[in-house]
């Protein structure tokens, strides 16, 4: 059984006041996420990521197509007992304290009595706000609210967790914590589905990713498999390189970047093997600092794919208008 599955999931919005025109926010999405995967759902702003998430949580209804979570249609109340959701920039009731909010949600999830109290305490500890449990949420900073959001998403030890832009607005410490959290969820066997427009996060965390642009799925698969992630060159950093040696071997190098103090970063083509040039440079008196393959980054790939999208997403605009 797949954790998440969508079939031709489509959403049109009506845009405009006098004569609303349908605007396609999501176009025939077909997606599969296996249980236990950490899945990165990537794309620029406006690509349809949040729309997809809302469709999966039945906050909005599809125009056509369908979606399932853990084998049941989206919106099934029983399934909601087994999932967790962290909305983007969450807002909770600011007149409640952190503890009260979690207790309220735990109540709705069906926990009572002692089990409820214990769970709430455990989660407050896990996300690190046990000290502020009695503080009203209106006084919480953005980072703390994000933690509360994570806590409420995990109250029921969910099998599938949906995180919408979990790193947004966090400082580096906060981002590190969220990252560790996702990793620990992965270790527990939880399926993590998170959306982001920050690609380095995905690179570090995900098994598989999907890239959205213009409401369409433009690529999906293991990061390593995505075609462009092959190396296309080498980066060789050497020190103690004299200007003479550099000039002599210049032709074998695509680009030179001086780093100061006779240290240079040299960009080499894939072939011939870089060891050859390295041997020659060392013979001339330089020493090795580092040698790394250069891959097209996710970012390059991303920018390329996004650039390929047609201009208008209004359904009734003829294809001829697309640029």
């Amino acid at each position: 059984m797949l954790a998440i599955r969508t079939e031709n999931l489509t959403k049109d919005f009506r845009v405009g006041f006098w004569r609303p025109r349908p605007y396609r926010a999501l176009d025939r999405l077909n997606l599969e996420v296996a249980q236990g995967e950490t899945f990165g759902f990537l794309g620029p702003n406006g690509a349809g990521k949040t729309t997809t998430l809302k469709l999966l949580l039945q906050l909005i209804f599809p125009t056509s197509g369908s979606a399932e979570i853990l084998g049941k249609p989206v919106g099934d109340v029983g399934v909601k007992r087994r999932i967790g959701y962290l909305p983007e920039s969450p807002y909770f009731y600011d007149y409640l304290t952190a503890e009260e909010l979690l207790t309220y949600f735990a109540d709705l999830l069906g926990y009572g009595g002692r089990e409820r109290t214990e769970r709430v305490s455990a989660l407050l500890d896990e996300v690190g706000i046990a000290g502020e449990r009695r503080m009203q949420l209106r006084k919480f900073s953005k980072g703390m609210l994000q933690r509360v959001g994570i806590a409420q998403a995990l109250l029921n030890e969910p099998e599938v967790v949906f995180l919408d832009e979990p790193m947004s607005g966090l400082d580096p410490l906060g981002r590190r914590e969220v990252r560790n959290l996702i990793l620990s969820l992965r270790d527990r066997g939880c399926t993590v589905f998170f959306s982001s427009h920050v690609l380095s996060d995905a690179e570090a965390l995900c098994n598989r990713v999907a890239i959205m642009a213009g409401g369409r799925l433009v690529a999906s698969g293991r990061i390593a498999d995505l075609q462009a992630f092959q190396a296309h060159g080498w980066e060789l950093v050497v020190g103690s390189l004299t200007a003479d040696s550099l000039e002599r071997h210049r032709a074998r190098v695509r680009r030179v970047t001086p780093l100061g103090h006779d240290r240079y970063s040299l960009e080499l083509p894939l072939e011939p093997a870089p060891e050859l040039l390295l041997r020659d440079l060392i013979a001339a008196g330089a020493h090795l600092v580092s040698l790394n393959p250069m891959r097209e980054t996710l970012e390059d790939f991303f920018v390329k794919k996004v650039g390929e999208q047609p201009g208008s997403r209004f359904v009734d605009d003829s294809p001829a208008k697309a640029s």
Partner: protein
Amino acid sequence: MRVIRAIAISVFKESVRDKVLYNLVFFAVFLIGVSYLLSQLTAGQDVKIIKDLGLAAMSLFGLFIAVFIGIGLVSKEVEKRSIYALLAKPITRQQFVVGKYCGLVFTLLVNLAIMAVAYYAVLGAVAWIAGAWFRPQWGAPALDPALLKAIAMIFLQLAMVTALALFFSTFSSPMLSAALTFGLYAVGHFNADLKNFDAVVDSKPVVFVAQALYYLLPNLAPLDIKNEVVHGVPVATGYLMLNTAYALVYIAVLVSSATFIFMRRDFK
């Protein structure tokens, strides 16, 4: 049920923390102040006037609470987006709407109960100072238990107004909801004119429409028994029962409509 109760309690908590119950302080101060000033002014009618004012204040304060909290019951959650996390929990949208409604009605009930206690206390004090629990010119004793009937009917009216506010809250902005709710509240008191339209206008279709409106719009005037109770005119239990039935049915219509609308909404 547990879900509805949990949501209702959260509404009550929010009202309390929004300091809604402070209106009780104004109520008590107002009633005490007025009864102090009135004793000289009214040729023996002070108890009647205090009864009238107390009931009117209960009705008016309750109305404001019902409308101003009611219009935000649903729309505030949607606007602030706290509803996202909430609907991801194992609850249905129906439970959400019903829970919110019950929460506000419960708040109004608590509010009215406390007001009733203050009300009887003031009446008791006035009667004690006047040295009599009943005088013929008052029409009814100062501490008349029949006043509770009037208060019960006020509660039903407020429950209906809350249902109206909730209904509008599911699809329109707070400003518009407030205007529509107050408007229907006012109309609900001159319904009788619609019923007697045939005395004013000759055209049959117009009369038909007017009478249809009379029956379909919220008819709040029959629930107003304040005058009868203050003058000691007995009110039949059967009448009260029918009023209650009407209110419950009307509320059911409004709440189920609100639920229906809410169930199909996209939350952008």
